[in-house]
């Protein structure tokens, strides 16, 4: 509802929800967001005082009400300003929306949460939600507008997309849903709009193995990375992996380099977050918007910057 009001005013505005991965581990993604959205006519509010979503290993693992309370405080920051949140991190997207879903479907939880929020002079009515950057680009901004704003394109580049689990499942909790979560097309269509080939590959919806799995048992986690990488190489021989998740970004970027060094992978494919690719194509400084990586990106960046529109 809030997004619609914003649309009427011809001005999109969101609360920029950073999370933890992005500001501390991949701040170049943060720069990308801060660069591309104003350029696409979207106003971002800093949402001062935001915290961790909370991520899965923290409050969700301790207490449902506690999880929802922390999430509700973040969502309330947007609700107070009459705006939705926007995130580039799937974990935040999942945790915030899952908590919201719990509150909206279970009045008892919602009541308890608001009791807790009342002690800090806040409340959460359930209006504000968290939107995903990819969906805002796809639905609110539109692919036409995106195309127009590009200085460079992805022509001739084959992209393997990695939407990530919390972009898809469980589909019923999210504000925006793929028609078929088992055959997601939003990210592919965005990349194609930018000129890339973004074919389907059979392990497209497989998990990257980041998060708790990696911290608990990295070796097991890397099985998933390896499988995925090999499938990408074999089936579509991609030049670039584009993801909409900060965790997938870190995992695929970091782990494939480890696997390569251990001799378990004999190729490497650069990995970027969608907002980074857009920022590059819009002509922002590669150092600032895509400067942090483990798997080398120089070559792909060079190729992109050769593709003047």
């Amino acid at each position, binding site marked *: 509802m809030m997004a619609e009001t914003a649309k009427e005013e011809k001005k999109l505005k969101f609360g920029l929800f950073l999370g933890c991965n992005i500001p501390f581990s991949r701040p170049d993604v943060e720069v990308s967001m801060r660069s591309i959205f104003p350029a696409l006519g979207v106003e971002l509010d800093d949402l001062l005082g935001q915290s961790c979503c909370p991520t899965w290993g923290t409050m969700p693992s301790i207490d449902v009400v506690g999880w929802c309370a922390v999430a509700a405080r973040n969502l309330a920051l947007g609700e107070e300003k009459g705006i939705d949140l926007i995130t580039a991190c799937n974990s935040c997207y999942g945790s915030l929306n899952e908590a919201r879903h719990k509150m909206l479907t279970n009045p008892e939880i919602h009541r308890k949460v608001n009791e807790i929020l009342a002690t800090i002079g806040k409340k959460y009515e359930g209006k504000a939600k968290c939107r995903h950057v990819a969906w805002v680009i796809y639905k609110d901004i539109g692919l036409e507008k995106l195309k127009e704003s590009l200085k460079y394109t992805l022509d001739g580049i084959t992209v393997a997309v990695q939407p990530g689990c919390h972009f898809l499942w469980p589909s019923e909790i999210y504000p925006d849903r793929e028609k078929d979560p088992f*055959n997601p097309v939003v990210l592919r269509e965005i990349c194609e709009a930018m000129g890339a080939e973004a074919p389907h590959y*059979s392990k497209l*919806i497989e998990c990257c193995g980041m998060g708790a799995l990696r911290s608990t048992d990295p070796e097991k986690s890397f099985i998933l990375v390896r499988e995925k990488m090999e499938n990408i190489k074999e089936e579509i021989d991609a030049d670039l992996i584009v993801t909409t998740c900060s965790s997938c970004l870190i995992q695929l970027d970091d782990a494939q380099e480890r696997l390569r060094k251990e001799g378990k992978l004999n190729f490497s494919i650069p990995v970027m977050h969608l907002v980074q690719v857009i920022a590059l194509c819009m002509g922002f400084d590669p150092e600032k918007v895509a400067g942090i990586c483990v798997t080398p990106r120089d070559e792909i960046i060079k190729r992109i910057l050769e593709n003047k529109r």
Partner: protein
Amino acid sequence: MAEEEPRIGVYICHCGENIAGAVNIEEVKKFAEKLPNVVLVRDYLFMCSNPGQELIKQDIREGKINRVVVAACTPRTHEPIFRRALEDAGLNKYFFEMANIRDQDSWAHWHEKEKATEKAKQIIAAAVAKARLLEPLEDRYVDLTQKVLVVGGGIAGIFAALDIANAGYKVYLVERNPSIGGNMAKLDKTFPTNDCSSCILTPLMVEVANHPNIELLTYSEVEDVEGTVGNFKVKVRKKQTWVDWDLCTGCGACTNVCPPKARVPDEFNEGLSKRGAIYIQFPQAVPKKAVVDIDACIKCAGREFGTEPRKTKDGKPILAPCEKVCPTGAADRTKPRNPEGEVVELDVGAIILATGYKVMDKKHFKEFSPDSPNVITAMQMERLISSTGPTEGKLIVPSDIPKYLEWKKKVEKGEQVELDARKPHRIVYVSCVGSRDDRFHSYCSRVCCMYMVKQAMLLKEKYPDLDIYIFFIDVRTPGKDFDEYYMRARRLGIKVIKGKVGGVQRLPDERLWVRGYDAELGKPVELIADLVVLATAIEPSDGTFELARKLGITCGEEGFLKERHTKLYPVDTMTEGVFIAGCAQGPKDIPDSVAQAKAAAASAMSLLAPGKMKVEALVSEVDKEKCSGCGICVPLCPYGAISMVNYNGKMRADINPALCKGCGVCAAACPSKAIKLHGFTFEQVLAQVRTLAKRGVVEVL
């Protein structure tokens, strides 16, 4: 007789120890003797026994009593028995009232004997109070129409129709498709005997068509039902066929020439191939007649129905291909035709609903890559292995069916070419797709386990090299010879895995990456398959709910027609005279459908055979002298039994006793107290209420 002062006999039953064990019979007797109009009180060990009933009969015959109160068990089971006793003794059977002192007294208050005795007195006093006000009533008989409507021409409808017709009654069989045969006509072979479905079905279809007592109305739908048990009036719409069925011989010439642009997915082949806009439902159709799917028809040569054809320069009419090839003129488009078809009215005494089922479409199951042509439903698999199917029974992957059709065309033209289509090597069956699934249907579809085994077995026997996997949650084979059948499949080397498939992903070469779980191994399993067959759930066929509504039958939560009682009245419905058979009532296999059809037929016939039907006298009646004509009662009647009629120049309410079921909602509402519900009149109920309120104290008017 009604003028006579009531002389009430009260009969108290001991019910062995059941009543006497808690109720002091002697005390109650003494009490009852003092009640007004009571002339005698007797007790007996078992009132419902022959000697017990004889006591009553004798007292009536000797003129001692003219009203009977039996204090015993519940009227729900025993009222009819005692009423018959009254009748036998020559007393109007409605001069009877029962006092429930067992189920609602001695049993419930077994350990409070004094209070149970006290309560028994009150109950009897109330019954006596009502008995004083009883009136003689006459049951009426109405004539029945000894004809039956069977809705649905699948195997259940066919059997019901044949059984009834063979018994000499007229049957109307209404089927909405052009041909009867139903889903069974699509099946290749049937479990557990593996005989060919059409070989056993087609003769029955022909028998129906030729039966002198059966009037077949195909391509027709029930539009409206009025009336009640014994005398229903049914409106049936015969849809426009756009082909003159009197002339059509079913030669099929027209169907071959219908142009590619007018071709649409063939329902009979479950969309695996296409049919023309003008088509015959399937080769063994009965009746074998063509119809035009008017939405698909592209009106070749501008041939709208009811127009004269344009002429060529030399004056020859330009006809659509179908009418041009029709040897009998059945496809002639010059004659105007009513797009709405025609409505016929049928009078029947009973209705059997055999509207069958449909299988769920695969599109709902996103996790199984329904977009892949090589993921198919089991019903599609039936067509794929059937010799009348899209590939004439040749097993190829469905993604190659277009290649097959191309090849066939060339061969028909006489070209010598090899068929370049992939044969599946590995086939995976997935069970419980949409069944036992809270997102779709929580019920078990009941036939899937068996038909998966059947298909796998047929394939394996024909192609021993095939690698077949069946993923079950639980294997369910409760039926005669069913488990033996299943074990035979296991012996053939079909790999049965206990565990559900959680994902099917499409590979670039149109093969499929199947991910399942093997509960016995306790591990996830995966494999690459050429063909995935989904055992999608069985659902009630479209329109079941609407039809049920028209007939006043409820559908269960899942949309299947609700039987009157799960165990005792499995083919009856809450609407008297309407019976159900087959999958309309719930998923079932062919043996069960046939058994149920025969049961429904027998039930319908036992209803109609006497030619007359007794109508209970416990219905409402309007005293037109008292009626003020306000009409409040008219909309209240759930059966539309009340209408306003002219009575001495005034509009007065009138109740049709044949439609009235005796609920009394009108009697309660009548502001003029002009409506009386016989058997539960205002005065009668009030007398009971007052007597109980006064704790059974003898009431003197």
